């Protein structure tokens, strides 16, 4: 009756989104699969025939493959740790009574509005440049030798730039979660003589766990795809070549579409392994 009616209605209402996303997934995916079994070199005449799994073998056996997987995981992991830890601390701080709270919030969330290309350009040139960058001036002012950020601490620099961009996002979500924390519960605990640290560990942290998993899930999706930050700063040099960047080099710089497509398939597999792992955790948390 009513439920039957609404069930079929629900299917109809879901259809556009599901069909569109199915198409968005299947069409590029099947084209990528098709190319990945071909020797396809646009600059050498294009389609040079089927080659079976040759591209797949070549992509994994290349000396660049495993380091790029590790680089990807280090960048994603590093940014997640920094944004979550600092995000929790910032969210707690921003939830305290203070003067000018609104303005402070605006200051803190602003980096999220900056497009990745711009933020990479600004950091690279105006801060990390070893001669004209602000950091170099700062170091020199204290008599220290300026750090060559993008070559000597390349990974750290990229993690820092990306963390700066994503910290506001983590802070926003965690702040919303903290605001919903029952103040009375906290105050009751305080009355009972619980130390601030204990209150933080036993009340705040458990309350935030759900928000933290969501931050991790959403950020991971975006972080696996970061490209502009690397393209602009190091161009993949100094051990900053992620899997995404390696694929870019194969497809666009070497113009080897077949090989790059095989890399794309590996990237999808890697992403889905991570996704599966994440969704196990989030999935549990999702039953509200």
């Amino acid at each position, binding site marked *: 009756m009513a439920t039957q009616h609404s069930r079929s209605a629900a299917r109809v209402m879901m259809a556009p989104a599901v069909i569109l996303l199915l198409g968005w997934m299947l069409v590029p995916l099947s084209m990528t699969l098709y190319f990945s079994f071909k020797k396809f070199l646009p600059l050498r005449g294009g389609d040079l025939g089927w080659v079976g799994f040759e591209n797949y073998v070549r992509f994994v056996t290349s000396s660049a493959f495993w380091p790029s997987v590790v680089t990807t995981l280090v960048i994603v992991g590093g940014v997640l740790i920094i944004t979550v830890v600092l995000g929790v601390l910032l969210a707690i701080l921003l939830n305290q009574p203070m003067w000018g709270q609104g303005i402070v919030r605006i200051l803190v969330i602003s980096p999220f509005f900056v497009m990745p290309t711009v933020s990479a350009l600004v950091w690279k040139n105006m801060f990390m440049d070893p001669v004209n960058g602000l950091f170099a001036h700062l170091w020199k002012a204290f008599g220290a030798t300026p750090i060559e950020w993008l070559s000597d601490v390349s990974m750290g620099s990229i993690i820092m730039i990306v963390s700066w961009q994503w910290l506001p996002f983590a802070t926003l*979500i965690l702040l919303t979660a903290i605001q919903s924390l029952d103040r009375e519960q906290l105050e009751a605990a305080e009355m009972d003589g619980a130390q601030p640290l204990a209150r933080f560990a036993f009340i705040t942290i458990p309350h935030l766990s759900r928000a933290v998993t969501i931050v991790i899930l959403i950020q991971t999706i975006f972080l696996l795809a970061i490209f502009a930050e690397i393209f602009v700063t190091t161009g993949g040099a100094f051990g900053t070549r992620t*899997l995404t960047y390696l694929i870019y080099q194969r497809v666009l710089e070497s113009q080897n579409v077949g090989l790059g497509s095989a890399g794309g398939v590996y990237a999808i597999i890697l992403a889905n392994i991570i996704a599966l792992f994440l969704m196990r955790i989030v999935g549990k948390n999702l039953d509200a």
Partner: protein
Amino acid sequence: MARAVKPQRKAINTAVAWSIGLLIFFPILWTILTSFKTEAQAISDPPVFLAFDWTLENYGIVMERSNYARFLWNSIIIAGGSTILGIMIAVPAAWSMAFVPSKRTKDILLWMLSTKMLPAVGVLYPIYLLFIKLGLLDSRTGLVLVLMLMNLPIIVWMLYTYFKEIPGEILEAARMDGATLREEVIHILTPMAVPGIASTLLLNFILAWNEAFWTLNLTAAKAAPLTAFIASYSSPEGLFYAKLSAASTMAIAPILVLGWFSQKQLVSGLTFGAVK
């Protein structure tokens, strides 16, 4: 509030929070300041903070060289169009997931998110070929579609979490009164979900505005948004910090101002279901 906060503690909070806030905001502030310097002052050693001869020269050069208005307009159309289209498609889907859940609802939701994991660089060539076939290269329509599809999973998920918080009884009552499904969605659900929809709109507008891979690779002259505008100011010959800063400021200012005005909305609305 049950208890007054000691002014002393409030002062410390304020000091700490402002310092951290300014530190985080500093790169943006520095970019804006640099955009008003001359190229020589932009790299001067020691750096000057405020005591320089403020000039609008860089903005003049950028305006003369690029058709800023067109880039801006394209950004607005592409980000706005993809967000609105996405919401129109996502609202019914999120509604049915929230109110007529089935065993597979969660799976579908997670599957939708997983479509975002397709690496864009890996599929550039196929998509490019497809766009040629469909005549969508360098068209705003094409970008609206691509960015809508990219963000659709996030939009569905956000809306789903907001809809779930709406108590089912209200809907029951409306149904008793003989409201049709359509009326139910339009007159009852949507108004209740407006804050949620607004945050969704904002977040996805920001994400679409800042998307720099597809917008750069699928456009040439006609549909190029601000991400392409920036690509003409990064590392040219000669000194360029001040001009780059001016161009950067022009590229981020609209979205920054929008973000500032909607700060409250973002702070209270971005939950992704994290709050029960």
